[in-house]
Protein backbone atom coordinates (compact mmCIF):
# COMPACT_ATOMS: atom_id res chain seq x y z
CA UNK A 1 0.00 0.00 0.00
CA UNK A 2 2.81 2.41 0.93
CA UNK A 3 4.74 1.54 -2.23
CA UNK A 4 1.61 2.17 -4.27
CA UNK A 5 1.15 5.54 -2.58
CA UNK A 6 4.75 6.51 -3.23
CA UNK A 7 4.59 5.44 -6.86
CA UNK A 8 1.38 7.42 -7.32
CA UNK A 9 2.95 10.54 -5.87
CA UNK A 10 6.02 10.19 -8.06
CA UNK A 11 3.86 9.64 -11.15
CA UNK A 12 1.85 12.77 -10.38
CA UNK A 13 5.05 14.75 -9.92
CA UNK A 14 6.60 13.51 -13.16
CA UNK A 15 3.43 14.22 -15.17
CA UNK A 16 3.11 17.67 -13.63
CA UNK A 17 6.77 18.50 -14.20
CA UNK A 18 6.50 17.42 -17.83
CA UNK A 19 3.34 19.44 -18.37
CA UNK A 20 4.96 22.51 -16.88
CA UNK A 21 8.00 22.71 -19.09
CA UNK A 22 6.27 25.07 -21.47
CA UNK A 23 4.36 27.01 -18.85
CA UNK A 24 5.18 30.71 -18.60
CA UNK A 25 7.20 31.82 -15.63
CA UNK A 26 5.06 33.06 -12.79
CA UNK A 27 5.80 36.74 -12.35
CA UNK A 28 4.83 36.54 -8.70
CA UNK A 29 2.54 39.55 -9.02
CA UNK A 30 -0.70 38.74 -7.28
CA UNK A 31 -2.19 41.90 -8.72
CA UNK A 32 -1.56 41.13 -12.37
CA UNK A 33 -4.63 40.36 -14.44
CA UNK A 34 -5.15 36.63 -14.87
CA UNK A 35 -1.68 35.55 -13.70
CA UNK A 36 -0.81 31.97 -14.42
CA UNK A 37 -1.58 29.70 -11.50
CA UNK A 38 1.54 28.30 -9.89
CA UNK A 39 2.27 24.76 -10.94
CA UNK A 40 1.61 21.71 -8.83
CA UNK A 41 4.68 21.90 -6.67
CA UNK A 42 6.43 18.75 -5.51
CA UNK A 43 9.22 18.89 -2.96
CA UNK A 44 10.73 16.94 -0.14
CA UNK A 45 13.83 15.63 1.56
CA UNK A 46 15.60 12.53 2.76
CA UNK A 47 18.04 12.32 5.63
CA UNK A 48 20.40 9.84 7.20
CA UNK A 49 22.84 10.09 10.12
CA UNK A 50 25.44 8.44 12.28
CA UNK A 51 25.63 9.37 15.94
CA UNK A 52 28.22 8.49 18.53
CA UNK A 53 27.65 9.29 22.19
CA UNK A 54 30.99 9.37 24.01
CA UNK A 55 29.50 7.37 26.88
CA UNK A 56 28.77 4.61 24.34
CA UNK A 57 25.07 4.77 24.99
CA UNK A 58 22.31 7.04 23.77
CA UNK A 59 22.05 9.65 26.51
CA UNK A 60 20.57 12.85 25.18
CA UNK A 61 16.82 12.39 25.00
CA UNK A 62 15.77 15.13 22.59
CA UNK A 63 13.91 14.26 19.40
CA UNK A 64 15.39 12.35 16.45
CA UNK A 65 19.03 11.26 15.91
CA UNK A 66 18.29 8.66 18.54
CA UNK A 67 20.39 5.66 17.54
CA UNK A 68 23.81 5.14 19.10
CA UNK A 69 26.72 4.16 16.84
CA UNK A 70 24.47 3.28 13.97
CA UNK A 71 24.09 4.49 10.43
CA UNK A 72 20.38 5.24 10.67
CA UNK A 73 17.68 6.87 8.66
CA UNK A 74 15.60 9.90 9.48
CA UNK A 75 12.75 10.08 7.02
CA UNK A 76 11.71 10.60 3.46
CA UNK A 77 9.42 13.59 3.30
CA UNK A 78 7.19 14.21 0.28
CA UNK A 79 5.09 17.30 -0.14
CA UNK A 80 2.62 18.50 -2.74
CA UNK A 81 1.03 21.92 -2.98
CA UNK A 82 -1.14 23.64 -5.50
CA UNK A 83 -2.82 26.99 -5.72
CA UNK A 84 -5.59 27.86 -8.13
CA UNK A 85 -6.82 31.42 -7.86
CA UNK A 86 -7.34 32.05 -4.17
CA UNK A 87 -7.59 28.42 -3.09
CA UNK A 88 -4.66 26.21 -2.21
CA UNK A 89 -3.79 22.98 -0.49
CA UNK A 90 -0.71 21.40 1.04
CA UNK A 91 -0.27 17.69 1.59
CA UNK A 92 2.96 16.41 3.14
CA UNK A 93 3.67 12.83 4.08
CA UNK A 94 6.69 11.21 5.70
CA UNK A 95 8.10 7.73 6.15
CA UNK A 96 10.82 6.62 8.52
CA UNK A 97 11.47 6.93 12.26
CA UNK A 98 11.69 10.72 12.19
CA UNK A 99 8.56 10.95 10.06
CA UNK A 100 6.51 8.37 11.91
CA UNK A 101 6.78 7.30 15.54
CA UNK A 102 9.23 10.09 16.49
CA UNK A 103 7.05 12.94 15.29
CA UNK A 104 3.56 11.74 14.43
CA UNK A 105 0.68 10.39 16.49
CA UNK A 106 -0.71 6.93 16.19
CA UNK A 107 -3.56 7.11 13.72
CA UNK A 108 -5.73 4.66 15.57
CA UNK A 109 -4.90 4.62 19.23
CA UNK A 110 -6.38 7.70 20.85
CA UNK A 111 -3.83 9.57 22.90
CA UNK A 112 -0.98 7.12 22.70
CA UNK A 113 1.84 9.25 21.30
CA UNK A 114 3.88 6.23 20.26
CA UNK A 115 3.01 4.71 16.94
CA UNK A 116 3.34 1.01 16.49
CA UNK A 117 6.16 1.31 13.97
CA UNK A 118 4.94 1.03 10.44
CA UNK A 119 1.48 -0.10 11.42
CA UNK A 120 -0.88 2.69 12.27
CA UNK A 121 0.83 5.93 11.30
CA UNK A 122 -1.12 8.08 8.91
CA UNK A 123 2.23 9.58 7.79
CA UNK A 124 0.65 13.04 7.58
CA UNK A 125 2.87 16.01 8.52
CA UNK A 126 0.71 18.67 6.89
CA UNK A 127 -2.72 18.34 5.35
CA UNK A 128 -4.65 21.55 5.00
CA UNK A 129 -6.60 23.75 2.66
CA UNK A 130 -6.35 27.48 2.50
CA UNK A 131 -8.29 30.35 0.97
CA UNK A 132 -7.22 33.97 0.43
CA UNK A 133 -10.37 35.94 1.21
CA UNK A 134 -8.48 39.10 0.26
CA UNK A 135 -4.84 39.97 -0.36
CA UNK A 136 -4.52 40.46 3.39
CA UNK A 137 -6.91 37.93 4.90
CA UNK A 138 -6.40 34.17 4.75
CA UNK A 139 -8.36 31.24 6.17
CA UNK A 140 -6.75 27.84 6.69
CA UNK A 141 -8.09 24.55 8.06
CA UNK A 142 -6.64 21.10 8.56
CA UNK A 143 -3.72 19.41 10.27
CA UNK A 144 -0.72 21.68 10.37
CA UNK A 145 2.76 21.83 11.73
CA UNK A 146 2.58 23.89 14.91
CA UNK A 147 3.23 27.59 14.73
CA UNK A 148 5.01 27.46 18.10
CA UNK A 149 8.78 27.26 18.42
CA UNK A 150 12.02 27.80 16.51
CA UNK A 151 12.85 24.29 15.38
CA UNK A 152 10.76 22.05 13.17
CA UNK A 153 10.44 18.38 12.27
CA UNK A 154 11.90 18.57 8.78
CA UNK A 155 15.71 18.28 8.87
CA UNK A 156 15.88 20.44 5.75
CA UNK A 157 14.37 23.37 7.63
CA UNK A 158 16.58 23.12 10.72
CA UNK A 159 20.19 24.22 10.98
CA UNK A 160 21.11 21.83 13.78
CA UNK A 161 20.37 18.15 13.21
CA UNK A 162 19.71 17.26 16.83
CA UNK A 163 16.89 19.19 18.44
CA UNK A 164 16.41 21.37 21.47
CA UNK A 165 14.58 20.48 24.67
CA UNK A 166 12.21 23.32 23.88
CA UNK A 167 11.31 21.65 20.60
CA UNK A 168 10.95 18.18 22.07
CA UNK A 169 8.70 19.36 24.88
CA UNK A 170 6.55 21.71 22.82
CA UNK A 171 3.79 20.90 20.36
CA UNK A 172 4.60 19.30 17.00
CA UNK A 173 1.30 19.70 15.18
CA UNK A 174 -2.04 21.33 15.78
CA UNK A 175 -5.21 20.47 13.88
CA UNK A 176 -7.69 23.29 13.62
CA UNK A 177 -8.93 26.35 11.87
CA UNK A 178 -7.04 29.63 11.73
CA UNK A 179 -7.44 33.09 10.26
CA UNK A 180 -4.52 35.35 9.42
CA UNK A 181 -4.75 39.05 8.75
CA UNK A 182 -1.85 41.14 7.49
CA UNK A 183 -2.15 44.68 8.81
CA UNK A 184 0.88 45.71 6.80
CA UNK A 185 4.10 44.30 5.41
CA UNK A 186 5.44 44.46 8.96
CA UNK A 187 2.60 43.21 11.15
CA UNK A 188 0.21 40.29 10.89
CA UNK A 189 -1.95 38.40 13.34
CA UNK A 190 -3.09 34.80 13.28
CA UNK A 191 -5.80 33.51 15.57
CA UNK A 192 -7.33 30.09 15.53
CA UNK A 193 -9.11 27.33 17.34
CA UNK A 194 -7.52 23.92 17.44
CA UNK A 195 -8.36 20.45 18.65
CA UNK A 196 -8.27 20.03 22.40
CA UNK A 197 -5.09 17.93 22.40
CA UNK A 198 -1.81 18.73 20.65
CA UNK A 199 -0.26 16.26 18.23
CA UNK A 200 -3.42 14.32 17.43
CA UNK A 201 -5.27 13.93 14.18
CA UNK A 202 -8.64 14.21 15.92
CA UNK A 203 -10.00 15.71 19.10
CA UNK A 204 -10.63 13.32 21.96
CA UNK A 205 -13.02 13.16 24.84
CA UNK A 206 -11.68 14.09 28.22
CA UNK A 207 -11.29 10.41 29.07
CA UNK A 208 -9.22 9.80 25.98
CA UNK A 209 -11.86 7.71 24.24
CA UNK A 210 -11.90 8.24 20.53
CA UNK A 211 -15.60 7.41 20.24
CA UNK A 212 -16.62 9.98 22.81
CA UNK A 213 -17.13 13.59 21.81
CA UNK A 214 -13.98 15.65 21.83
CA UNK A 215 -13.91 19.36 21.33
CA UNK A 216 -12.07 22.06 19.48
CA UNK A 217 -11.14 24.08 22.51
CA UNK A 218 -7.48 25.07 22.21
CA UNK A 219 -6.95 28.71 21.35
CA UNK A 220 -3.86 29.76 19.48
CA UNK A 221 -2.56 33.08 18.26
CA UNK A 222 0.58 34.37 16.62
CA UNK A 223 1.59 37.99 16.26
CA UNK A 224 4.23 38.39 13.56
CA UNK A 225 6.31 41.54 13.56
CA UNK A 226 9.05 42.53 11.13
CA UNK A 227 10.57 45.62 12.75
CA UNK A 228 13.33 46.01 10.18
CA UNK A 229 14.38 44.16 7.06
CA UNK A 230 15.89 40.86 8.02
CA UNK A 231 14.34 40.68 11.49
CA UNK A 232 11.17 38.75 12.15
CA UNK A 233 9.64 38.04 15.55
CA UNK A 234 6.76 35.72 16.36
CA UNK A 235 4.87 36.03 19.63
CA UNK A 236 2.90 32.84 20.12
CA UNK A 237 0.33 31.57 22.57
CA UNK A 238 -1.36 28.19 22.65
CA UNK A 239 -3.79 27.58 25.49
CA UNK A 240 -6.44 25.05 26.39
CA UNK A 241 -7.66 23.08 29.36
CA UNK A 242 -6.47 19.74 27.96
CA UNK A 243 -2.94 20.49 26.78
CA UNK A 244 -2.02 23.48 28.90
CA UNK A 245 -0.68 26.89 28.02
CA UNK A 246 2.52 27.80 26.25
CA UNK A 247 3.80 31.29 25.59
CA UNK A 248 6.60 31.40 23.06
CA UNK A 249 8.86 33.98 21.45
CA UNK A 250 10.61 32.93 18.26
CA UNK A 251 12.74 35.44 16.44
CA UNK A 252 15.55 35.57 13.92
CA UNK A 253 17.58 38.50 12.67
CA UNK A 254 19.73 38.28 9.55
CA UNK A 255 22.06 41.01 10.73
CA UNK A 256 24.42 40.84 7.77
CA UNK A 257 24.53 38.68 4.66
CA UNK A 258 26.77 36.31 6.62
CA UNK A 259 25.54 36.53 10.21
CA UNK A 260 22.17 35.46 11.57
CA UNK A 261 21.02 35.42 15.17
CA UNK A 262 18.00 33.44 16.33
CA UNK A 263 16.29 33.24 19.69
CA UNK A 264 13.60 31.05 21.18
CA UNK A 265 12.11 31.51 24.64
CA UNK A 266 9.09 29.75 26.03
CA UNK A 267 7.20 28.98 29.21
CA UNK A 268 4.74 26.14 29.53
CA UNK A 269 2.15 25.39 32.20
CA UNK A 270 0.39 22.04 31.87
CA UNK A 271 -3.17 21.44 33.02
CA UNK A 272 -4.03 20.26 36.52
CA UNK A 273 -1.22 22.22 38.09
CA UNK A 274 1.48 19.93 36.74
CA UNK A 275 5.13 20.79 36.26
CA UNK A 276 5.77 22.77 33.12
CA UNK A 277 8.99 24.27 31.84
CA UNK A 278 10.81 27.47 31.08
CA UNK A 279 13.53 27.65 28.48
CA UNK A 280 15.58 29.81 26.22
CA UNK A 281 17.79 28.97 23.26
CA UNK A 282 20.02 31.17 21.18
CA UNK A 283 21.17 30.39 17.64
CA UNK A 284 24.09 32.40 16.18
CA UNK A 285 25.11 31.35 12.68
CA UNK A 286 27.95 32.57 10.49
CA UNK A 287 28.34 31.82 6.80
CA UNK A 288 32.07 31.67 6.07
CA UNK A 289 31.68 30.81 2.39
CA UNK A 290 28.91 30.08 -0.04
CA UNK A 291 28.97 26.43 0.96
CA UNK A 292 29.96 26.45 4.65
CA UNK A 293 28.05 27.92 7.58
CA UNK A 294 28.92 27.44 11.23
CA UNK A 295 26.36 27.72 13.98
CA UNK A 296 25.93 27.31 17.70
CA UNK A 297 22.89 26.50 19.76
CA UNK A 298 23.03 27.39 23.42
CA UNK A 299 20.04 26.27 25.44
CA UNK A 300 18.90 26.48 29.03
CA UNK A 301 15.87 24.38 29.91
CA UNK A 302 14.29 24.23 33.35
CA UNK A 303 11.54 21.92 34.55
CA UNK A 304 9.32 23.78 36.96
CA UNK A 305 8.57 22.69 40.50
CA UNK A 306 12.01 21.37 41.23
CA UNK A 307 12.35 19.18 38.16
CA UNK A 308 15.90 20.30 37.54
CA UNK A 309 17.44 21.87 34.51
CA UNK A 310 19.82 21.24 31.65
CA UNK A 311 22.21 23.39 29.66
CA UNK A 312 23.10 22.30 26.16
CA UNK A 313 25.73 23.60 23.78
CA UNK A 314 25.63 22.36 20.20
CA UNK A 315 28.17 23.31 17.54
CA UNK A 316 27.05 22.54 14.02
CA UNK A 317 28.32 23.09 10.49
CA UNK A 318 26.25 23.02 7.33
CA UNK A 319 28.33 22.11 4.30
CA UNK A 320 26.38 22.35 1.08
CA UNK A 321 26.98 20.45 -2.13
CA UNK A 322 24.05 21.53 -4.26
CA UNK A 323 20.89 20.09 -2.75
CA UNK A 324 22.88 17.92 -0.35
CA UNK A 325 23.87 19.27 3.06
CA UNK A 326 26.40 17.54 5.29
CA UNK A 327 25.90 18.31 8.96
CA UNK A 328 28.72 17.50 11.37
CA UNK A 329 27.68 18.35 14.89
CA UNK A 330 29.05 18.04 18.39
CA UNK A 331 26.87 18.51 21.45
CA UNK A 332 27.50 18.83 25.18
CA UNK A 333 24.66 18.70 27.73
CA UNK A 334 25.02 19.34 31.45
CA UNK A 335 22.11 18.79 33.81
CA UNK A 336 21.24 18.90 37.46
CA UNK A 337 20.61 15.67 39.27
CA UNK A 338 16.87 16.26 39.44
CA UNK A 339 16.52 16.62 35.67
CA UNK A 340 14.60 13.73 34.14
CA UNK A 341 17.15 12.54 31.58
CA UNK A 342 19.03 9.49 32.94
CA UNK A 343 22.54 10.33 31.70
CA UNK A 344 25.06 7.58 32.35
CA UNK A 345 28.76 7.33 31.66
CA UNK A 346 30.53 4.55 29.77
CA UNK A 347 30.54 2.41 32.92
CA UNK A 348 26.80 2.71 33.35
CA UNK A 349 27.11 5.06 36.31
CA UNK A 350 24.72 7.98 36.58
CA UNK A 351 26.25 11.29 35.61
CA UNK A 352 25.13 14.81 34.92
CA UNK A 353 26.85 15.33 31.60
CA UNK A 354 26.53 13.85 28.17
CA UNK A 355 28.23 14.53 24.88
CA UNK A 356 27.83 13.26 21.37
CA UNK A 357 29.05 13.66 17.82
CA UNK A 358 26.91 13.11 14.79
CA UNK A 359 27.26 13.37 11.07
CA UNK A 360 24.09 13.76 9.07
CA UNK A 361 23.33 14.15 5.40
CA UNK A 362 20.15 15.83 4.24
CA UNK A 363 19.11 15.97 0.60
CA UNK A 364 16.35 18.46 -0.13
CA UNK A 365 14.53 18.61 -3.46
Amino acid sequence: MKKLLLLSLLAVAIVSAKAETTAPIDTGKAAAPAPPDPPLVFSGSVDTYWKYDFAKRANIPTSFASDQNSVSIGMIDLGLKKKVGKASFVGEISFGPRGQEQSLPDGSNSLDPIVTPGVSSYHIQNLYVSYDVTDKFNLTAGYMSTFVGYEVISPAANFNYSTSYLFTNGPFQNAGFKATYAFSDKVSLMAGIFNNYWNTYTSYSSTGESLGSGDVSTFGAQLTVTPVKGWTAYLNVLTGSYSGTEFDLTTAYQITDAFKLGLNAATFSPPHNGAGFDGVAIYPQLAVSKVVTFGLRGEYFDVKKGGGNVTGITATANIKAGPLTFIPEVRFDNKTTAFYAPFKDSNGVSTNSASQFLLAAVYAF
Partner: protein
Amino acid sequence: MANAQKSLLSMNEHNKYIYYQVVDLPGISADSLYKNAVYFIKQVYPKTKPMQMSNNSIIIKDKFLTYTYIVKHEDGEIACTLSIECKEAKYRYWLTDFVFTPYEKNRYGLFVPINGIDIPLETAISKVTKKELDGYLDQTGSFCKQLSEKLKKYMAEGRAIKKQDQPPAKVVTDKW
Protein backbone atom coordinates in the same frame (compact mmCIF):
# COMPACT_ATOMS: atom_id res chain seq x y z
CA MET B 1 13.26 25.58 -20.40
CA ALA B 2 15.00 28.90 -20.97
CA ASN B 3 18.30 27.77 -22.41
CA ALA B 4 20.73 30.56 -23.19
CA GLN B 5 18.17 33.25 -22.36
CA LYS B 6 20.87 34.89 -20.28
CA SER B 7 22.44 36.02 -23.56
CA LEU B 8 19.58 38.51 -23.81
CA LEU B 9 21.13 40.40 -20.91
CA SER B 10 23.96 42.91 -21.29
CA MET B 11 26.08 44.88 -18.84
CA ASN B 12 25.55 48.62 -18.65
CA GLU B 13 28.10 51.35 -17.92
CA HIS B 14 27.64 50.74 -14.19
CA ASN B 15 28.48 47.04 -14.61
CA LYS B 16 24.92 46.02 -13.91
CA TYR B 17 22.90 43.48 -15.85
CA ILE B 18 20.42 45.18 -18.15
CA TYR B 19 17.83 44.18 -20.72
CA TYR B 20 17.66 47.19 -23.04
CA GLN B 21 15.56 47.83 -26.12
CA VAL B 22 14.85 50.84 -28.35
CA VAL B 23 11.76 50.50 -30.53
CA ASP B 24 10.82 52.73 -33.47
CA LEU B 25 7.14 53.33 -34.08
CA PRO B 26 6.97 55.80 -36.98
CA GLY B 27 3.99 58.11 -36.99
CA ILE B 28 3.09 57.76 -33.33
CA SER B 29 3.56 60.82 -31.15
CA ALA B 30 5.43 60.82 -27.86
CA ASP B 31 2.21 61.70 -26.08
CA SER B 32 0.38 58.70 -27.56
CA LEU B 33 3.23 56.37 -26.71
CA TYR B 34 3.26 57.64 -23.14
CA LYS B 35 -0.51 57.05 -22.89
CA ASN B 36 0.02 53.49 -24.12
CA ALA B 37 2.77 53.00 -21.58
CA VAL B 38 0.51 54.27 -18.78
CA TYR B 39 -2.22 51.90 -19.97
CA PHE B 40 0.27 49.03 -19.91
CA ILE B 41 1.28 49.88 -16.36
CA LYS B 42 -2.33 50.11 -15.18
CA GLN B 43 -3.25 46.81 -16.79
CA VAL B 44 -0.22 44.77 -15.80
CA TYR B 45 0.51 46.36 -12.41
CA PRO B 46 -2.93 47.49 -11.18
CA LYS B 47 -1.91 47.57 -7.51
CA THR B 48 1.68 48.72 -7.80
CA LYS B 49 2.51 52.39 -7.45
CA PRO B 50 5.20 53.46 -9.95
CA MET B 51 8.33 55.05 -8.50
CA GLN B 52 8.13 57.70 -11.21
CA MET B 53 5.39 58.54 -13.72
CA SER B 54 5.99 61.88 -15.42
CA ASN B 55 7.75 63.66 -18.29
CA ASN B 56 6.98 60.81 -20.68
CA SER B 57 8.82 58.32 -18.52
CA ILE B 58 7.79 55.61 -16.07
CA ILE B 59 9.81 53.65 -13.54
CA ILE B 60 8.23 50.76 -11.64
CA LYS B 61 9.42 47.87 -9.46
CA ASP B 62 8.68 44.31 -10.53
CA LYS B 63 9.65 40.83 -9.41
CA PHE B 64 9.33 37.27 -10.59
CA LEU B 65 9.78 33.80 -9.16
CA THR B 66 12.65 31.51 -10.03
CA TYR B 67 12.23 27.76 -10.05
CA THR B 68 14.44 24.76 -9.58
CA TYR B 69 14.80 22.74 -12.75
CA ILE B 70 14.64 19.03 -11.95
CA VAL B 71 11.81 18.97 -9.44
CA LYS B 72 10.04 22.21 -10.08
CA HIS B 73 9.37 24.38 -7.06
CA GLU B 74 10.04 27.97 -6.10
CA ASP B 75 13.72 28.64 -5.52
CA GLY B 76 13.65 32.38 -4.99
CA GLU B 77 12.48 35.64 -6.40
CA ILE B 78 14.25 38.31 -8.41
CA ALA B 79 13.27 41.94 -7.97
CA CYS B 80 14.02 44.40 -10.74
CA THR B 81 13.22 47.86 -12.04
CA LEU B 82 11.41 48.53 -15.31
CA SER B 83 11.94 51.93 -16.96
CA ILE B 84 10.07 53.22 -20.02
CA GLU B 85 10.83 56.48 -21.84
CA CYS B 86 8.85 57.83 -24.78
CA LYS B 87 9.87 60.23 -27.57
CA GLU B 88 8.39 61.12 -30.94
CA ALA B 89 8.01 57.93 -32.97
CA LYS B 90 10.09 55.82 -30.65
CA TYR B 91 10.43 54.59 -27.12
CA ARG B 92 12.97 52.72 -25.09
CA TYR B 93 12.70 50.50 -22.05
CA TRP B 94 15.05 48.58 -19.87
CA LEU B 95 15.04 46.18 -16.96
CA THR B 96 17.87 46.34 -14.45
CA ASP B 97 18.69 46.29 -10.71
CA PHE B 98 18.17 42.52 -10.54
CA VAL B 99 18.31 41.37 -6.92
CA PHE B 100 17.84 37.73 -5.94
CA THR B 101 16.19 36.68 -2.68
CA PRO B 102 16.43 32.92 -1.98
CA TYR B 103 13.42 30.99 -0.72
CA GLU B 104 13.31 28.35 1.98
CA LYS B 105 10.70 25.73 2.78
CA ASN B 106 8.86 26.58 5.97
CA ARG B 107 7.12 24.37 8.51
CA TYR B 108 3.85 24.47 6.59
CA GLY B 109 5.39 23.06 3.42
CA LEU B 110 5.47 26.44 1.66
CA PHE B 111 8.42 28.14 0.02
CA VAL B 112 8.90 31.65 1.41
CA PRO B 113 11.58 34.37 1.05
CA ILE B 114 14.48 34.34 3.49
CA ASN B 115 14.05 37.67 5.20
CA GLY B 116 17.16 39.82 4.99
CA ILE B 117 19.01 38.06 2.17
CA ASP B 118 19.26 40.22 -0.97
CA ILE B 119 21.87 39.28 -3.56
CA PRO B 120 22.46 41.50 -6.61
CA LEU B 121 22.92 39.23 -9.61
CA GLU B 122 26.18 41.01 -10.45
CA THR B 123 27.79 39.77 -7.22
CA ALA B 124 25.81 36.55 -6.83
CA ILE B 125 28.73 34.34 -7.85
CA SER B 126 30.15 34.86 -4.37
CA LYS B 127 26.94 33.48 -2.82
CA VAL B 128 25.68 30.80 -5.20
CA THR B 129 27.26 28.25 -7.52
CA LYS B 130 27.94 29.05 -11.17
CA LYS B 131 25.29 26.54 -12.20
CA GLU B 132 22.72 28.22 -9.97
CA LEU B 133 23.69 31.67 -11.23
CA ASP B 134 23.43 30.54 -14.86
CA GLY B 135 19.93 29.28 -14.06
CA TYR B 136 18.91 32.60 -12.51
CA LEU B 137 20.31 34.55 -15.45
CA ASP B 138 18.50 32.29 -17.91
CA GLN B 139 15.23 32.76 -16.05
CA THR B 140 15.85 36.50 -15.87
CA GLY B 141 16.39 36.63 -19.63
CA SER B 142 13.26 34.59 -20.18
CA PHE B 143 11.23 36.88 -17.93
CA CYS B 144 12.55 39.99 -19.69
CA LYS B 145 11.70 38.52 -23.07
CA GLN B 146 8.14 37.72 -22.04
CA LEU B 147 7.57 41.11 -20.45
CA SER B 148 9.15 42.78 -23.48
CA GLU B 149 6.76 41.05 -25.87
CA LYS B 150 3.81 42.11 -23.74
CA LEU B 151 5.02 45.70 -23.50
CA LYS B 152 5.63 45.95 -27.26
CA LYS B 153 2.08 44.80 -27.92
CA TYR B 154 0.64 47.43 -25.58
CA MET B 155 2.87 50.16 -26.96
CA ALA B 156 1.92 49.37 -30.54
CA GLU B 157 -1.79 48.82 -30.01
CA GLY B 158 -2.69 50.69 -26.82
CA ARG B 159 -6.30 50.32 -25.80
CA ALA B 160 -7.06 48.31 -28.94
CA ILE B 161 -5.71 45.30 -27.04
CA LYS B 162 -8.79 45.38 -24.88
CA LYS B 163 -11.03 44.95 -27.90
CA GLN B 164 -9.04 41.92 -29.00
CA ASP B 165 -9.67 40.32 -25.65
CA GLN B 166 -13.44 40.38 -26.18
CA PRO B 167 -15.14 36.99 -26.72
CA PRO B 168 -15.27 35.77 -30.32
CA ALA B 169 -18.27 36.67 -32.46
CA LYS B 170 -21.18 34.26 -32.24
CA VAL B 171 -21.86 31.95 -35.16
CA VAL B 172 -25.41 31.02 -36.14
CA THR B 173 -25.35 27.33 -36.98
CA ASP B 174 -29.00 26.74 -37.90
CA LYS B 175 -28.66 28.61 -41.20
CA TRP B 176 -26.13 27.43 -43.67
